[in-house]
């Protein structure tokens, strides 16, 4: 790890709409991306709903910001960890999540998936590895 680079984990636990947490977290990630840190996002509990595909907010009069997750690759944010148990508890599978890709600069710009499904135990290890954890 290079000097001055810290491992940042943004933990998302809330549903995308109804509170401002999810949108604010995403904005912080986009702004923070300018600082060239080692950034990961975690989605657990109701936070897994943030990544579901086919979101439509017409009925609640707020902006559907789910397409913005697909821009994260442009900001070199390409580690989106989703907890398997949280998905299962809500009757969701990986297929219910939108596809989020990034281009791997070190592999001839090959397109690779940003979403990684991990277990609760692996999530605990991931958190343990971080220098900074920001919870939303």
């Amino acid at each position: 790890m290079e000097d001055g680079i810290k491992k940042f984990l943004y933990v998302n636990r809330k549903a995308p709409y109804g509170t401002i947490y999810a949108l604010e977290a995403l904005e912080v990630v986009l702004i923070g991306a300018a600082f060239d840190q080692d950034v990961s996002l975690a989605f657990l509990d109701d936070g897994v709903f943030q990544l579901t595909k086919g979101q439509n907010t017409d009925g609640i009069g707020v902006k559907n910001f789910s397409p913005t997750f697909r821009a994260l690759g442009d900001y070199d944010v390409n580690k989106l960890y989703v907890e398997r148990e949280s998905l299962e508890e809500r009757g969701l599978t990986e297929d219910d999540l939108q596809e989020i890709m990034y281009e791997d600069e070190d592999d001839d710009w090959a397109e690779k998936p940003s979403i990684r499904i991990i277990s609760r135990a692996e999530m605990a290890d991931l958190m343990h590895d971080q220098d900074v954890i920001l919870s939303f």
Partner: protein
Amino acid sequence: MSYEVNGQTVEHDEEGYITNLNDWSKELAEVIAKQEEIEMTDEHWAVVNFLRDYYEEYQIAPAVRVLIKAIKKQMGPEIGNNKYMYELFPYGPAKQACKIAGLPKPTGCV
């Protein structure tokens, strides 16, 4: 505060970003550009159109380094570099071009 285009009034905020994104038109872009003292060329339009497409797809205005990287990829390094982009938009490619493109101020711009 508002712009006047073809007899229509288009509201904008204190920094000149239009309030309702649906009010945008090419004519309005020319009006905003004039106020910013920018003569719109094909290159200016290419950047403005890129920003509008990006917003349409991702619902955000990209940060300036993301914009320049993407323009470089799409239109080559002659246009997609800091120097040239700042020649096109002296007050900041993301900030100024977004205003002309009728988009909100880019996230993270102060």
